[in-house]
């Protein structure tokens, strides 16, 4: 699973080479942050969990196994950090995860009507539907579909067998399709304002 480049990188990390950490950080930073942002639905929480994930990589670099699959390791730690956060927050009323209004992935488009194309709106709608799914569905879709993790790596991260992963992915896709069907009705009914509406449309 871990290719030759990954093996060399892990070896360098085990030797405590700061340049190796920089390379690992550069290669995996965006995917891990993106995963956490969509899993938690909040930028502040995503930042905390992201920081903890890479601090753990730095602290445990010399104890990594030589055959460590770095991407799978990082996603596993990130997911565990999120689960720990959720357990700690369990005493509080559960909040439906929602991406921030100024979601950095869309913010530039949202304030620029020219660039806020139908395709971008469609992706926002998809993102919004994804955010409404239960965690178990959301995480499998994020790992396999959004981040493009191979099935064997996703199995490692989620601690599932291959058949269980396929089953969960299939259910998650069905749930997402169902949510997407519901979303236009909400928008047309005017019950909820569009979260990514540009200032020109009346949302401040």
């Amino acid at each position: 699973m871990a290719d030759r480049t990954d093996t060399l990188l892990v070896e360098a990390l085990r030797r405590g080479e700061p340049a190796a950490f920089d390379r690992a950080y550069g290669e995996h930073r965006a995917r891990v942050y993106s995963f956490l942002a969509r899993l938690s639905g909040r930028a502040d929480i995503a930042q905390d969990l992201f920081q903890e994930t890479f601090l753990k990589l730095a602290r445990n670099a010399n104890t990594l196994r030589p055959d460590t699959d770095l991407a799978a390791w990082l996603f596993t730690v990130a997911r565990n950090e999120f689960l720990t956060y959720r357990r700690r927050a369990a005493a509080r009323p559960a909040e439906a995860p929602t991406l921030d209004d100024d979601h950095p992935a869309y913010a530039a488009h949202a304030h620029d009507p020219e660039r806020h194309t139908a395709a971008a709106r469609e992706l926002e709608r998809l993102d919004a539907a994804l955010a409404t799914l239960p965690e178990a569905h959301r995480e499998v879709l994020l790992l396999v579909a959004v981040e493009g993790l191979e099935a064997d790596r996703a199995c490692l991260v989620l601690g599932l067998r291959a058949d269980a992963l396929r089953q969960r992915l299939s259910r998650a896709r069905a749930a997402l399709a169902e949510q997407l069907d519901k979303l236009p009705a909400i928008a047309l009914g005017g019950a909820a304002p569009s979260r990514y509406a540009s200032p020109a449309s009346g949302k401040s």
Partner: protein
Amino acid sequence: MNDAPDNLLSQLRALPVVDADDGFAERVRREARREMAPVPIVAPALWRERLDQLFGRVLVPLSLAGATVVYLMWAVDAATRAYGR
């Protein structure tokens, strides 16, 4: 699986990456580098780990299996001598 869910997965793949802002990312990188564990004075060499693996995964199980076979042979032999013929 039908076409619609596959199409949905492709659409998910097209979702934009949500990246941390550069200032925050740089702060995390610096802090993590400071936290990097010091290299142990005697770092376990790769050959040593392979040897340990060989010992734990091959030699020990083989020894146990061998000892079991020898014991069973002795037990069968002893039983035959005691109760046989």
